[in-house]
């Protein structure tokens, strides 16, 4: 019987297989950041172990770096200590690092792909659950905990139990105005936050094939929000075109050899998935969350659901609790919900195409007086590319703040926070209680919806806006 893409990548990395034991898998790329690594490096130090392959390891500072005054020492002493610990660890163990101020610094999941380090068929790990982003290249990429970070640093391998496979088929072309973010929010609402547990998801179908690499990254990024450790998309010409010529992509004869191999990385016609979920693309529309987990979403054109709509008791009590936390009443049209803060950025939607899409909506318009809008590029490269295109001027003319690269308000470990009780429309990936700051209320949206919401002051899509100049 044929194999799925994920199984092919897995099989190509088995270092050791023994009965009743997990497979020992080789890791091609280990990305490291300041939050989940200090205790791992301490563990190595205590055991007197080196980093086995510093040349397959890359560190970047992203989770709690400031997005303004980055030329000054980090104001928060605890954040500063953590970032400094990463620098000391990287130097001591010989791990390359892109520090704050470096031209390559940025969010770990933006940096890897833009350098061309993330390639089809690789295994990629990072102590961050959004490592699933790299699956967009047909890589098997997943988040790990700090003990596993230490394990990979020491051995460049991980013992892993086999996973199940799930196909997510998005049939037909996406309707106009529907983005990758809307696709993945709908998928999560459909299968639930636990629906992907134990699975690797493979996104397939006409709508997925038509997506750009950056849009594919948005989709794969949020696989974890459906409970799946990894999500991937078979590499194709779009993938190869994106990679060709990038700094760390193969060149010359090696490029040809690589592409020949990458072309084999597709699910065989006779392979069987353990589960198949099919969604008709024609039924997709701009999608937003109303609750406190990413599965609690509805079309933007719909209303806040009622807990009574849920048959399962845990879902019902969860919905009741979410409505209370979010300060929402069942039956309220989503487009009537006023928003105080708009955040455009993160490893989900902080790439150049995301910023272009938001800028296109904001061009010639103004952010509502009641709204604070923050635009945070995913990396220094994204920031410079946006500035070269004049996007920063568009954002600033509209009244949005243009910041430096980092995770920022996605998880509010730096100074960028949503105030208690305030409501945000955010292009990030999690609407958990307090995620964007204590007491914050988050609605997950696409960059287009975020920008339109900033203008209207309530949740809105670009189609709801009056034409510029009208």
């Amino acid at each position: 019987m044929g194999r799925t893409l994920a199984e092919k990548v897995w099989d190509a990395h088995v270092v050791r297989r023994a009965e009743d034991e997990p497979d020992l898998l080789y890791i091609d790329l280990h990305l490291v950041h300041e939050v989940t690594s200090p205790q791992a490096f301490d563990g190595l130090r205590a055991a007197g172990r080196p980093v086995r392959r510093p040349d397959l390891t890359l560190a970047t500072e992203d989770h709690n770096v400031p997005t303004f005054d980055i030329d000054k020492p980090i104001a928060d002493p605890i954040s500063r200590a953590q970032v400094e610990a990463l620098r000391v660890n990287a130097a001591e163990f010989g791990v390359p690092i892109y520090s704050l101020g470096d031209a390559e610094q940025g969010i770990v999941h933006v940096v890897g792909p833009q350098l061309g380090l993330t390639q089809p068929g690789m295994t990629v790990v990072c102590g961050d659950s959004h490592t699933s982003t790299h699956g967009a290249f047909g890589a098997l990429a997943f988040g790990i905990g700090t003990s596993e970070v230490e394990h990979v640093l020491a051995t460049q391998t991980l013992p892993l139990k086999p996973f199940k496979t799930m196909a997510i088929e998005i049939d037909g072309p996406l309707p106009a105005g529907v983005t990758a973010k809307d696709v993945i929010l709908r998928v999560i609402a459909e299968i639930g936050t636990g629906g992907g547990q134990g699975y690797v998801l493979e996104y397939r179908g006409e709508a997925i094939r038509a997506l750009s690499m950056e849009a594919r990254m948005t989709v794969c990024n949020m696989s974890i929000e459906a409970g799946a450790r990894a999500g991937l998309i078979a590499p194709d010409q779009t993938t190869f075109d994106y990679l060709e010529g990038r700094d760390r992509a193969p060149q010359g004869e090696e490029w040809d050899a690589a592409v020949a191999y990458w072309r084999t990385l597709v699910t065989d016609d006779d392979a069987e998935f353990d589960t198949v979920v099919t969604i008709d693309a024609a039924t997709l529309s701009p999608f937003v969350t109303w609750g406190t987990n990413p599965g609690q979403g509805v079309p933007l054109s719909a209303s806040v659901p009622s807990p009574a709509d849920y048959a399962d008791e845990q879902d019902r009590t969860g919905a009741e609790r979410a409505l209370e936390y979010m300060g929402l009443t069942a039956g309220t049209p989503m487009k009537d919900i006023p928003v105080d803060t708009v955040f455009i950025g993160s490893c989900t939607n902080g790439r150049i195409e995301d910023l272009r899409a938001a800028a296109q909506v904001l061009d010639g318009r103004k952010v509502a007086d009641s709204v604070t809008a923050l635009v945070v590029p995913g990396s220094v490269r994204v920031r410079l590319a946006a500035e070269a295109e004049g996007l920063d001027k568009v954002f600033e003319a509209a009244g949005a703040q243009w910041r430096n690269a980092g995770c920022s308000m996605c998880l509010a470990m730096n100074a960028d926070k949503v105030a208690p009780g305030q409501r945000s429309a955010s292009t990030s990936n999690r609407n958990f209680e307090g995620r964007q700051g204590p007491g914050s209320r988050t609605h997950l949206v696409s960059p287009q919806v975020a920008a339109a919401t900033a203008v209207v002051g309530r949740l809105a899509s670009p189609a709801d806006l009056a034409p510029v100049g009208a």
Partner: protein
Amino acid sequence: MDKFTVHTGRALPLRRSNVDTDQIIPAEYLKRITRHGFEDALFAAWRQDPTFVLNDPAYEGVSILVAGPDFGTGSSREHAVWALQDYGFRVVLSSRFADIFRGNSGKGGLLTAVVDQPVVEALWDRIDADPATEVTVDLEAREVRAGDLVAPFEVDDYIRWRLLEGLDDIGLTLQHEADITAFEASRPAFTPTTR
């Protein structure tokens, strides 16, 4: 890692589903660079509410957490495991755990035991009725017991073995270093490096 065979203790009924790792430990506590001392961070936002179950003096000294489905969703932060352990928890019982959280727990020696939701609810009711109820989690027998309630639980075989033996994963893997070296020699020349 300490060996885990049988644990008996009092339990905390956490009647919530989708308890994500941002609730178990909010991000602001992740800036610490040590591996211990996270007990104050556990459920930090929820503990500000005086009626939150963990603030009930009747549950002082609990060591078993009984939670709703989809416990530990979200971030990969292993700090969530450390916060639970630092507070004194040895076991979490739920009908469904998020994958990364479950893996992290196994590494750190926190037992995540999967029981059916009706068992969770039966335990909730018993503990609510009498917070002094003693619950026994027997990893050898894969069984949870509380009074006349006896229920099986699921745990990954390999994690169970490691917990029972108290084994360190890295040490186990390094026994196969020759296999790793041999694999490295076979990797294609086009795979990238970071420097």
